C-alpha cells in the first residue's frame, strides 16, 4: 500500500516538474533561432549547412514545392565552406530571377551570380568562387527576401 502511494507521489512530482519545464523549453526554442542567427553574424566563413538552414527558414513554403531547389540544397556537404555561386544558384532557382535564363540553360553558377547581382541581391564586385562570411550570408538572404516580396 505504501509502495503504491510512493509511486503515485513520484508520478505527481514528475508531472509537476514537466509542466513547470514545458514553457521554459518553449521559450528556449523560441530564442534558439535568434541565438543561432546572431552567432552566424560573427562567422568569418559560413558553411553550406548555414545557408541551407537560413534558406529553409526564410522561404519555408516555397522550397518544399520546388524539387529542383531541394536537389540544389543537397548538392554539397553541410560543412562545405560557402561560395557565392552555391547560394546564388539556390536563390536564382527558387526566386526564378529575371536574369537567370542562362543559369537555367547552362547550369553554371556564374550566371546565377550575375542574375543575383542584377536583382541587387549580391554586390557587383565579386565572383562565384568567393567565400561568404556569416554577415554577408545574412545580407544576401535579407535582399533575397526583399526581392521576393517586391519591397
Amino acid at each position, binding site marked *: 500500500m505504501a509502495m503504491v502511494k510512493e509511486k503515485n507521489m513520484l508520478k505527481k512530482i514528475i508531472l509537476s516538474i514537466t509542466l513547470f519545464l514545458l514553457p521554459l523549453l518553449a*521559450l528556449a526554442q*523560441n*530564442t534558439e*533561432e*535568434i*541565438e543561432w*542567427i*546572431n552567432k552566424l*553574424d560573427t562567422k568569418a566563413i559560413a558553411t553550406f549547412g548555414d545557408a541551407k538552414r*537560413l534558406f529553409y*527558414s*526564410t*522561404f*519555408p513554403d516555397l522550397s518544399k514545392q520546388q524539387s529542383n531547389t531541394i536537389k540544389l540544397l543537397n548538392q554539397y556537404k553541410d560543412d562545405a565552406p560557402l561560395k557565392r555561386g552555391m547560394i546564388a544558384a539556390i536563390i536564382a532557382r527558387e526566386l526564378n530571377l529575371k*536574369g537567370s*535564363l*542562362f543559369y537555367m*540553360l547552362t547550369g553554371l553558377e556564374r550566371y546565377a551570380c550575375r542574375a543575383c547581382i542584377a536583382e*541587387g541581391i*549580391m*554586390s557587383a564586385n*565579386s565572383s562565384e568562387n568567393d567565400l561568404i*562570411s556569416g*554577415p*554577408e550570408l*545574412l*545580407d*544576401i*538572404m*535579407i*535582399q533575397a*527576401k*526583399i526581392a521576393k516580396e517586391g*519591397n
Partner: protein
Amino acid sequence: MKHFFVVIFLSGSLLCASNSFAEITVIKVQGTAAYRDGNKWSPLKEKMKLPEGVKISTGANSYAIVSLNSLNHTVKIEPLSMLQIYSQETTNKTNTHIGLKRGQITANVPKNESVKTIFKVSTPVATSSVRGTEERITYGEKTGMIVEVLRGSIEATNRFGRSNVISGKQKFMQISNSANSRNILSTVRSISIVSVNGHGLTSEETATSQYSEEDQTGSPDGDTGTLFENISKNATVTINLQWPW
C-alpha cells in the same frame, strides 16, 4: 538652507523632465523576435514594455512592430534584423535614435507641429534624420545603407558629412567603402534607360540570340523577321515625362 534644497529639487526635476525615457512598447510580434535581457535573449511579447537602449533581433520570416513613444512613432522590424533603440520624450520634444546593425526597418513618424521631433536611424555607414515621414531603411555589410522614403522627406548623411535630402522615388544608397552615396535617382534611371546595341537589340536580346536561330531575334509582339544591317530610317518615339511624382 531651505532655499538651497528647493533649488536642488527643482533642478533635479528639470533634469529628469528633460531626459525622461519614453515608453518603448511592443505592439505586434509575428514569428520569432527577441530582446537582449542581460546576457541572454528573451522572447518578445505583445504589450511588453522595453527598457531604454534595448537590443532587438528578429528571426527569419518574422517581424515585430514597436511603439517608441506616446506620439505613436513606430518601427516595424523586418526579418533577420538587429537594432538598438534609444527613445526619450518630454511634453514638447521627442528624441529617438535607432542603431541598425543589420536588416530592414520601416519607421513611421507622424508629423506633430507642437512637438520638436528628432528621429535618427544610424548604421555603420550613414545616418538618416526624419520628421513627419515614413521611411524604409535597409543595412547589410555588402549592400550598405539604403533609405527609401514612403511618405514625406528625409535627410541622409554619410560618415563624411555629405548629405542628401530625398523624397518621392529617390533612394539614398551608401556603401561602406565609398566617400559618396550613389546618385539618388540611380534606381529610377536604371529602369528608365535601356542600352541598345547593334541591330537595335538590347543586351538581353543579343545574349539570347547566341542561343537561338537568327530569325528568332525579332520583337516579342510577333515580328520575327531577320534584321537588315545598315538601314537608316526615321522613327517617332513618344515620351511621357512626369516630374515630380
